[in-house]
């Protein structure tokens, strides 16, 4: 099963930092994503895209995890040469992650 089945994302940016929230549709799945979707897992999932650390914040009452990925946007929206300078498309790739 892919994360897409049980959770949704929103992606934002500040400077060279990408911020992805991951929220489960059903709170009973929160423990599962908390266990499976770790900051280390994201670091390898995004590979060369994310050059800095990744922090994870937990919001169990909302069934959500908030990931902050440093040095992740080729300089950020005001200087990157990427097609998607905000990195707004990055979050959806996380939903491809298998969780079983």
């Amino acid at each position, binding site marked *: 099963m892919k994360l*897409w089945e049980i959770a*949704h994302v*929103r992606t*934002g*940016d*500040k*400077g*060279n*930092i990408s*911020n992805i*929230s991951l*929220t489960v*549709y059903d709170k009973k799945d929160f423990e599962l994503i908390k266990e499976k979707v770790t900051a280390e897992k994201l670091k390898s999932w*995004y*590979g*060369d*895209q994310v050059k800095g650390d990744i*922090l994870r*914040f937990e*919001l169990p*009452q*909302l*069934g*959500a995890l*908030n990931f*902050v990925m440093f040095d992740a946007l*080729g*300089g*950020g*929206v*005001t*200087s*990157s*040469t*990427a*097609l*998607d300078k905000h990195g707004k*498309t*990055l979050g959806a*790739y996380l939903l491809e992650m298998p969780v079983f």
Partner: protein
Amino acid sequence: MKKIRIGSGAGYAGDRLEPALELIEKGNLDYICFEGLAERTIAIAQKAKKADGKKGYNELLLDRMRKVLPLAYRHKTKVITNMGAANPIEAMNEIAQLARALNLEGLTIAALTGDDISEHIHQYLESPILETGQSLDSIKDKIISANAYLGCDGIVEALSQGADIIITGRVADPSLFLAPMLYEFDWKQDDVEKRGVGTLIGHLLECAGQVTGGYFADPGKKEVPDLWNLGFPFVEVDEGGNGFISKLADAGGLVTPATCTEQLLYEIHDPEHYITPDCVADFSKVIFTQIEKNKVAFSGATSKLATDTFKVSVGYQNGFIGEGEISYGGSNCLNRALLAKSVVEKRLELMPFEISDLRLDLIGINSLLDQGLPSSEPKEVRLRVAGKLSTKQDAQRLANEVETLYTNGPAGGGGATKRVEEIISIASILVPKNDIVTNIHFQKIQA
């Protein structure tokens, strides 16, 4: 208990106008706020102002106000916007002229200034740039603009002096919305809980349609009714800090705990420490409750006292981006695109200038996130080449190296485009709040 309604009229500079007009018309609003200043927008506006002292505010502002003012006047809705960008005073003057032509007697328009500290920026050359850690001195010759993210105070003062329409430059997005709450409910500096709630409301509203089902739909999984007719949000809040967020019943979109949760966590990093000029908000315990269809109550927000610094965005010239694209389709298109890529790569190696951040991506394959080449042949693929150069001319040459693939590259290339753009980057520094002096200017429309 006293309560007010605040609507969101725009989530970015170029946002739609119709949902804002509908909200003023039918939303029974006391206030509507238009947010329209992305990080570097003000640097671009500053350049426009330098070229023409009458410019430098949002290009769509007057078109917006032509429609907004008569409605807001009729419904007694006050308007707050940061679309004054680099020139709030000229924006105020133009809006006043518009209001006179529309016979909006008694209307008071205010402009807030003081965010622009570009004339004093030399005082801060030793300040570290938050993004890189280098000192501001490292970019001093390239600086275009410097604007502090002001908080609520100036807007609250303008409201207390009777302003109906308030035009600002750089003000932090949530502060535009928090200001009317502080003014109406007289929430004090140390009332950290209510300031936290007010900042939460501002944060939920500041991106307009992003909390009512915009940036949300995922067919088959997250359906959004009538997305084409997306409504903008409003909040009703009482002086105790209790309230709900909703949208007009006949507008498209939806308001649910899921849309609110996505917007709550949007670009806030640590939910316990969301730093704004007005407070350090703590959203870590926020709860959303669906109380009716498209009506969500919020609770659990709080804050700590504000820091003693303002964040200042320094805009600077950072060279040029040159960019070219060309498409390949049909049989063996991926291999022809890869050949095209290697041709451009070799040609660029021969160029007598330095290219930084060079990217050669295949749109449809690896331009958003590089996950390697696909195992099956795509039906079409588009090569995109982009890099940073120090002059416009060099950027043009890079872009041309893609276009010349038409007659010099692999078979069947089509739809070539090229683009050159000046790069205006942003460096952030912190400046003591005591250094910043704000002023409020007024124009009253007389009979």
